[in-house]
């Protein structure tokens, strides 16, 4: 398996579509042959949507059954005779298929319109796992939670499975017919009444198709609206440069990074790459290595801020003032007052400014997409003034195929619909009924359109209001293309035939253009062939080869945008707004760290994913700082009414240390009303108070307690407790007492490299009746892992990767509340210092694979034992479920199937499962295995080739997906292995070594690189 991975990274790839399209075409058909489309259609009615566990409420009938069952229980169930099975071969086996060996296909995932390069694992034609594409500039082999979770979306039982007309089941043909009728009169009027609404589109082919459509229908209009789009960034660029450009950061060149309320490592088009580049500049894994320095001024704790060497709490609404002050200080003309906003100490500002000035050309100032255009413009100006432009940040043509002010575009559409000018509305992959700002009455206006068509993966709020709902093809099902953050285009190639015969946006537009039976593949291929023949690409003589290479590499060569020379000025920016009263409370809306803008609301993995810092699952909440909560009299779980000019919602309060005082954050993407079994009714819909004028930062908000409460569930119960007048967080205090997290400054480290080491008495051998019996260093392999706290940003990607790789079950809110979440890997968060403005530390925790594993010797049946290679094995089929191992595990990384959590009911989810990992059933303990299945596969391949496993040949799922490469796994008995080198670092320490557990997972202590100029 893993040698295929390594091949997949090399262009001369045998297993990625070596033969002509016809072969691949056949390969899908064989998929259908094998899976049988019928089998998938059986999944139409999901019995238990993922995330819902079978009910435990009992009626009389059940009870009688149960009593009977229990009476006859003893022994009977013990007989486990294998059922008679059928085995079904192909009729014609595709050449590249070797049953039992997965294939990897390079493709790309559009996220917020922008492409994320992926390498997707396919078992017998079933995509089961998405990995980053090492050859893709936006990925470098890593992914984020959304990329990892997208496979579950593909198989989600909630997906729209058949076209519906007015809610009644219909056929694609009927749709075409009906559409045709409407298009006839549109054609006569030049498409005057025809409007198309999409999200942000970077796909060259799709844009080209739409342009084509617009020429067919000159009067028609194409609108774009992305709920969590980058309007501000675009507008900011226009203000600064007079034109739309996209800023691309070069964090690998930046020594000083100043983030003005930016979470650039999450959610932005280049986030994954940025995280990697940023981390590379602070690895400190060799002597004399230097670290970059990050100043983060932010209103709510973000994963970016968690790595900051100086974190400044500032309200989002005050960031503009800060930016102006900074601009003034670095000598940007016309930036307004140089006065930093209240709460920003002068020496902080001075320190930052001096640092930036000291690093001309190697510094970088960034700001977040939720900051107003003015701030973006200022930042551009600052970077230019500091000579960073062209060095650490470059500007390219906008990656959007048609960069516009999307909010305005949406409002135009609504106005037109309201005026009754729209007769035919085609919505593709958008859900504006849910996600339009509250002051844009989309639904009301849309009602006036005679013919409304919605193309979507799910029957959502919008689909429910449309005449036609047409199933959309998932990106793993259809051909397409998409541009990455730097313009690099990738071909989206499908790994499976559309399970529900869904159509891609590309095909939909084709239909609108009358090309009813045009295949997505041909459209994309034709477009790029035209580009090639048009000389826009150096495709060489043979386009076929170029096409194959592009498919194999996952990127189309020569499509990366060239750097643009632009010069910034702040002349055009509006005057500074009146600063918000110091005691007034602002409300900041942010995209959810799990559900983004709500489009992932069906995804049970993401719903159950503990959100960074809050560890909140299955809910969003008003994040309030302890002080502000006290002042407003809010307690955790209080339901609070939030009122903004006439509109109101009620949301629960969550008290979050590190949240900026008088700034409350609420995540978008929750409170869906039509989101299938898992997502419907989870959390609060913040779009209901969002306004088009200030979509992100709301001032003049009224908060009032309703008296009711709403139970919030977290996976790590951080208890805030009052102790002698000061607020403490008991668990964090204990954590630092026990040196669970070890932190030092770069200077400490230089002075005393071993500052993180345990005292000698911990490592010395205690006398024992059992002198060390097994010596793992003598073996060929001794598997170990090193986790670098200095680069881990706690982005959660590893957790979702683990879900996908290890068939981990979702248990639902109630069970998580019972402390029964099944995640094998978790991100622990501890706070240090004053809880009003603490330092937050993330620590990834998974099975530590102790050599003297406490879990093993207490198991009565030997269901957990040790392998000679130092792995702590868990044998599910031997486990009888005494839970003793978990009790005795000091790290509590074991997870128990208290009930039947794995979903054996929903057929559509079966093909998602990783066939190399047992699906655990009721009453069985489970835990991280270092992705044993990958190790074994690699070892078998190595044995066959009579060699030993190479370093890096086996990657654990968490390691492979980690954007910052904070997790390194390998053979500790190989002196040249990366993990061995890391473990030799003086920063290396193990958790609870004093218990003599001898963990094989160790950590590299966190190092801060503070600016001496700044006190405190």
């Amino acid at each position, binding site marked *: 398996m893993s040698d295929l991975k390594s091949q997949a990274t090399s262009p001369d790839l045998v297993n990625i579509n070596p033969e002509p399209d016809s072969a691949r075409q056949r390969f899908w058909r064989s998929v259908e042959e094998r899976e049988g489309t019928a089998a998938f259609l059986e999944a139409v009615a999901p019995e238990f949507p993922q995330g819902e566990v079978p009910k435990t409420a009992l009626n009389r009938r059940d009870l009688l059954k149960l009593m009977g069952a229990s009476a006859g229980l003893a022994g009977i169930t013990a007989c486990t005779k294998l059922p008679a099975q059928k085995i079904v071969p192909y009729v014609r086996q595709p050449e590249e298929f070797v049953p039992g060996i997965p294939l990897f296909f390079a493709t790309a995932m559009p996220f917020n319109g922008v492409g994320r390069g992926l390498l997707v694992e396919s078992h017998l034609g079933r995509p089961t796992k998405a990995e980053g594409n090492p050859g893709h500039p936006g990925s470098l082999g890593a992914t984020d939670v959304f990329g990892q979770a997208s496979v579950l979306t593909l198989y989600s039982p909630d997906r729209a499975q058949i076209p519906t007309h007015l809610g009644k089941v219909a056929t694609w043909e009927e749709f075409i017919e009906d559409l045709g009728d409407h298009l006839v009169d549109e054609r006569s009027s030049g498409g005057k009444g025809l409007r198309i609404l999409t999200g942000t589109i970077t796909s060259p082919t799709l844009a080209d198709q739409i342009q084509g459509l617009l020429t067919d229908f000159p009067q028609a209009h194409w609108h774009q609206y992305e709920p969590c789009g980058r309007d501000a960034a675009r507008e900011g660029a226009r203000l600064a440069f007079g034109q739309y450009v996209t800023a691309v950061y070069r964090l690998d060149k930046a020594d000083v990074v100043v983030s003005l309320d930016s979470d650039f490592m999450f959610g932005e088009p280049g986030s994954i790459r940025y995280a990697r580049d940023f981390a590379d500049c602070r690895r400190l894994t060799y002597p004399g290595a230097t670290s970059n320095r990050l100043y983060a001024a932010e209103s709510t704790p973000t994963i970016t801020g968690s790595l900051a060497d100086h974190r400044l709490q500032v309200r989002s609404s005050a960031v503009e003032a800060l930016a102006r002050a900074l601009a003034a200080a670095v000598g940007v003309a016309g930036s307004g007052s140089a006065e930093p906003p209240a709460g920003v100490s002068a020496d902080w500002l001075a320190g930052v400014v001096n640092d930036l000035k000291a690093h001309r050309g190697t510094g970088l100032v960034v700001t977040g997409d939720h900051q107003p255009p003015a701030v973006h413009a200022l930042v551009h100006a600052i970077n230019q003034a500091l000579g960073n432009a062209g060095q650490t940040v470059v500007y390219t043509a906008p990656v959007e195929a048609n960069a516009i002010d999307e909010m305005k575009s949406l409002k135009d559409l609504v106005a037109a619909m309201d005026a009754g000018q729209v007769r035919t509305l085609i919505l593709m992959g958008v859900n504006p009924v849910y996600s339009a700002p509250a002051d844009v009455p989309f639904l009301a206006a849309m009602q006036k359109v005679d013919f409304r068509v919605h193309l979507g993966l799910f029957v959502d709020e919008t689909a429910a209001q449309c005449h036609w709902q047409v199933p959309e093809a998932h990106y793993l099902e259809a051909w397409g293309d998409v541009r990455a953050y730097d313009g690099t285009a990738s071909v989206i190639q499908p790994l499976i035939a559309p399970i529900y015969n869904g159509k891609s946006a590309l095909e939909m537009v084709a239909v609108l253009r009358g090309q009813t039976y045009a295949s997505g593949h041909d459209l994309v291929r034709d477009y790029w062939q035209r580009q090639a023949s048009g000389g826009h690409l150096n495709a060489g003589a043979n386009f076929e080869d170029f096409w194959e290479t592009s498919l194999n590499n996952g990127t189309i060569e020569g499509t990366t945008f060239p750097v643009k020379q632009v010069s910034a000025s702040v002349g055009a920016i509006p005057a500074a707004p009146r600063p918000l009263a110091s005691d007034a409370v602002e409300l900041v809306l942010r995209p959810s760290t799990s559900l983004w803008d709500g489009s992932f609301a069906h995804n049970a993995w993401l719903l159950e994913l503990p959100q960074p810092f809050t560890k909140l699952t299955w809910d969003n909440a008003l994040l309030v700082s302890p002080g502000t909560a006290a002042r407003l009299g809010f307690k955790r779980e209080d339901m609070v009414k939030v009122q903004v000019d006439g509109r109101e919602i009620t949301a629960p309060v969550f008290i979050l240390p590190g949240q900026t005082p008088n700034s409350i954050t609420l995540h978008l993407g929750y409170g869906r009303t039509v989101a299938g079994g898992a997502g419907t009714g989870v959390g609060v819909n913040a779009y209901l108070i969002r306004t088009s004028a200030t979509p992100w930062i709301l001032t003049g908000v009224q908060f009032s307690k309703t008296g009711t409460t709403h139970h919030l569930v977290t996976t790590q119960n951080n208890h805030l407790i009052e102790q002698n007048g000061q607020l403490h967080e008991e668990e964090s205090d204990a954590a630092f007492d026990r040196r669970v997290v070890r932190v030092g400054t770069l200077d400490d480290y230089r002075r005393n490299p071993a500052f993180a080491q345990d005292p000698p008495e911990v490592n010395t051998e205690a006398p024992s009746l059992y002198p060390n019996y097994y010596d793992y260093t003598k073996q060929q392999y001794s598997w170990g892992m090193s986790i670098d706290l200095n680069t881990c940003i706690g982005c959660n990607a590893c957790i979702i990767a683990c879900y996908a790789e290890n068939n981990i079950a979702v248990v639902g809110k109630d069970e998580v509340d019972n402390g029964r979440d099944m995640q094998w890997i978790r991100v622990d968060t501890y706070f240090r210092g004053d809880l009003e403005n603490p330092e937050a530390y993330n620590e990834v925790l998974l099975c530590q694979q102790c050599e003297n*594993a*406490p879990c093993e010797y207490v198991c009565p049946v030997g269901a957990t034992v040790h392998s000679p290679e130092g792995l702590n094995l868990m044998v599910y089929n031997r486990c009888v479920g005494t839970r003793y191992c978990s009790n005795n595990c000091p790290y509590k990384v074991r997870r128990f199937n208290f009930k039947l959590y794995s979903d054996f009911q929903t057929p559509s989810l079966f093909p998602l499962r990783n066939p190399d990992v047992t699906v655990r059933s009721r009453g069985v303990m489970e835990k991280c295995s270092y992705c044993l299945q990958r190790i074994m596969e690699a070892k078998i391949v190595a044995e066959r080739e009579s060699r030993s496993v190479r370093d890096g040949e086996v990657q654990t799922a968490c390691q492979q997906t980690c954007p910052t490469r904070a997790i390194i796994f390998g053979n500790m008995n190989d002196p040249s292995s990366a993990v061995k080198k890391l473990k030799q670092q003086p920063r290396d320490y193990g958790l609870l070594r004093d218990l003599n557990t001898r963990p094989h997972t160790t950590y590299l202590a966190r190092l801060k690189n503070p600016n001496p100029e700044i006190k405190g």
Partner: protein
Amino acid sequence: MAKSPLYGLMAEFETPEQVIEAARRTRDEGYRRMDAYTPFAVEGLPEVVGIHKGWLPTIVLIGGLCGTLTGLLLQWFPNSVGYPLDIGGKPNFSWPAFIPIMFELTILFAALSSLFGMIILNDLPMPYHPVFNAPRFDLASRDRFFLCIESRDPKFNLEGTKDFLIGLNPVDVTEVES
């Protein structure tokens, strides 16, 4: 109960002292094949009737030792031969961990051998026994003490023995059919 061969003569007494006395006299008289039946263990009686040390303790000791050995082998075999595994880095033969089970099995085997030893040595179960033919023998489990001289005793003769027993002034003397 006509004319079935005689098992012996049964004399009934009211107190343990009497039966001990009677047994001693009977013994001095030269009778050997006799037995006393009492509602509870009367001290000294067995010795008088002519029963001395038994084998039970030895049996129990052997049983116990077997238990220990079983416990040892039971744990040594799987861990060293049957299916050796690395359990938490502990040696295959981690003897201290094996002590509890060895101990328990010792007790178990010893206890069982003591019960079954007693039952077998006492030649139980024996739901039918001639002595039950004695009409008032049900009192033997209540408040009466019986002494029975068996007919197979060489010195036994119906008349003489009966007279001898009456001479011990029991409450009653009866012939016991076998």
